[in-house]
């Protein structure tokens, strides 16, 4: 094991290198490029015995990933934002063929308006595809999640691809101290790839992706995918425990932060959870009984873990760094559904939309959210609607942009 300073992107590259992937189809997009640049240099130098191929688009990149995985090699690829949605069709194609590859997504908000900093509309658009999703707070977690991802994806009872998500800029370009495990240790945890079912390189012919015209047959295959994802929920604790024993780090599906005696809980994901944790600490020091639950595994959705973390609390605030236009927070809806059947569900469940396009939290916003939770007179109608975080100061700032845009030349 080596302790070193790495960006989130470099950690992703190290994850692929330590997983001894065979094949990396690539296409550049900010803020993912450092990953493929790093891998390209290693492949050229011979430090990493893999083949990296520059493709003509993310759609082609994912097609090549599909083709190689279907032929029986370990595949890694990475993209971001527009790239993910450009290749979107192939996400379903890969998952439907039950191909166990790992795709890193470096989150970036979607155009229009075109921008660079992160939110999660990109990766959450893929929530229904059949990819499992790990959302990372730290660079260490990025590296570890890639190794965990291959173990999960290649498990004979799962056979679903994995997306490992990290926030663009906040994590992709932030250097953090990281433990890089030795290759020998990693090999103990993640042996070489052995396809569980027929692949195109087999001696006997095989037809993959045959047309299915019978609705019951189609339904059967989709149900199988769902059952596999459910199996992943049961298998994950075993794999994560084994990882913990080997490497000394635990990556539970839901991370609990200062939750023990918390009356109020804030739910967050990804790197902005670090900001949330700092706020929770501050509020704790002011005597507030508040904690944070970080949803690390988004697919399969860890219903039991979330229920355990949130049941019996007085109030829960879900901060979605995404917006389903016309509905609100994507994860809020999912968490509300997970809690609905509990007799001791939190009486107050509020939805906040924050962090869009990389927007940072403003001073006082966490205090405000907590105050709303403490005021238990929230009506159910208010609970069903998202609260869009935006300050008066920002309004004035936007007004200045408008004034410039509308100025006569």
């Amino acid at each position, binding site marked *: 094991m080596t302790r070193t300073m790495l960006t989130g992107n470099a950690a992703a590259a190290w994850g692929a290198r330590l997983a001894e992937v065979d094949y990396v189809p690539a296409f550049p997009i900010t803020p993912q490029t450092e990953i493929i640049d790093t891998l390209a240099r290693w492949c050229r130098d011979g430090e990493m015995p893999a083949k990296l191929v520059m493709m003509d688009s993310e759609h082609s990149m994912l*097609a090549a990933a599909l*083709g*190689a995985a279907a032929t029986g090699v370990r595949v890694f690829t990475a993209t971001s934002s527009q790239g993910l949605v450009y290749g979107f069709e192939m996400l379903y194609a890969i998952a439907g063929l039950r191909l166990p590859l790992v795709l890193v997504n470096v989150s970036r908000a979607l155009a229009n308006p075109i921008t660079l900093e992160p939110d999660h509309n990109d990766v959450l658009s893929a929530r229904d595809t059949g990819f499992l999703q790990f959302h990372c707070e730290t660079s260490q977690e990025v590296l570890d999640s890639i190794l965990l991802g291959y173990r999960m994806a290649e498990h004979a009872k799962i056979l679903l691809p994995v997306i490992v998500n990290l926030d663009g800029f906040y994590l992709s370009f932030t250097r953090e101290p990281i433990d890089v495990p030795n290759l020998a240790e990693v090999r103990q945890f993640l042996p070489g790839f052995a396809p569980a079912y027929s692949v195109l*390189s087999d001696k006997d*012919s*095989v037809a993959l992706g045959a047309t299915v015209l019978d609705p019951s047959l189609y339904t059967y295959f989709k149900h199988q995918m769902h059952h596999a994802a459910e199996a992943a929920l049961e298998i994950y604790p075993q794999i994560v425990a084994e990882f913990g024993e080997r490497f000394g780090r635990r990556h539970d599906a839901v991370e609990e932060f200062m939750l023990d005696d918390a009356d109020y809980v804030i739910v967050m994901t990804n790197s902005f959870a670090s900001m949330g944790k700092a706020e929770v600490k501050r509020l704790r020091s002011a005597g507030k009984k508040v904690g944070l639950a970080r949803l690390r595994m988004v697919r399969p959705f860890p219903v039991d873990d979330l229920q355990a973390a949130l049941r019996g609390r007085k109030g829960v605030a879900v901060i979605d760094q995404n917006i389903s236009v016309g509905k609100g927070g994507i994860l809020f809806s999912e968490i509300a559904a997970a809690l609905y059947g509990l007799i001791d569900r939190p009486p107050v469940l509020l939805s906040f939309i924050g962090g869009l396009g990389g927007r940072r939290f403003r001073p006082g916003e966490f205090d405000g959210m907590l105050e709303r939770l403490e005021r238990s007179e929230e009506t159910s109608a208010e609970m069903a609607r998202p609260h869009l975080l935006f300050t008066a100061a920002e309004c004035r700032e936007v007004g200045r942009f408008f004034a410039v845009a509308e100025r006569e030349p």
Partner: protein
Amino acid sequence: MKREKYKSLRTISRQDSVVGGGPLCAGCGGQLSLRLFHKALGENVIFVNAASCSTLLATYPFTPLSSSWLYMAMGCAPAGAQGVRDALDILKAKGALPPENDRKVVVLSGDGAAQDIGLQSTMAAIYRGLDFYYFCYDNESYGNTGFQTSASTPYGARTATAPITPSSPHGSLHERRDLFEIWRVQKPPYVATVAAAYPLDLSEKVYRASKLSGPKLFIALSPCPPGWDFEPEWSVEVARLAVETGIWPLKEAIHGAVSHTYVPRKFKPVEEYLKRQGRFRHLFEPERDAETIAHIQAMVDDYWQTALRDSPTSFLPRNAGADEGGGVKQRRDNDAKHL
């Protein structure tokens, strides 16, 4: 073209790698071409399929192919082929795939994918020098979806999106895009047009291509009975008329150098081809559209005159003197009578 391997129909394998009973239409010119192509290519093939009529070949739990099959999507079959080819090479290098089990990778698509939605991924595969075959069965339309206009649709043809109406009685008014030339200017090892009515020409081209490494394109004219509107038993005859009228030149280009592999001794008028198909019926009924027919004839004449003027060497046999007939007077290839 001097034929080295396929000198008579008896040299074509009796072994079928695409068996009958599949779900494609009766008289499908695409399937007939594919069958001949696969016979010549031999076994150990992986087809990477772009969404098209041919996607129905493998309909769970059946496949008429003795080879392997991977369905991709419509726009990215060459990119999928890249992944398959690279993975095979990786496994070979690791010693995990014995060389005798190596596969030929073939993209199978219609003209919609080859000309339109998949052109970008195709150009990229050529740029990378991917070692693969691209077999495009060209039924000059989006056939599977009900015969809409594609960039291959010929001038004057009726399609579902260029229907004949009182205010627009002319069919499609675009000239078809020349896919052969789009490939050829990049000088890939092999580009060819074929037609199932000329099985020796087709098979010999597969043999010639098999000796070359890199991107290899076959564009197979594929008469489509329901789309072109003729009886299924006329598929071979319609393909033959396309060649004999000069509408569908049989040719190849090796690293960009063109050869016409078969030239009719005497060109038939295009009318003989057009009037066999319902998609051109409006050129003859209720009144004869002499202007459009003349325009189509002029385009064909122009092709051959330009070819003769600008690239006379394309009419020379590859090995002068040793060919059968050769040049513009090359002996008529009437193999199709035996099909």
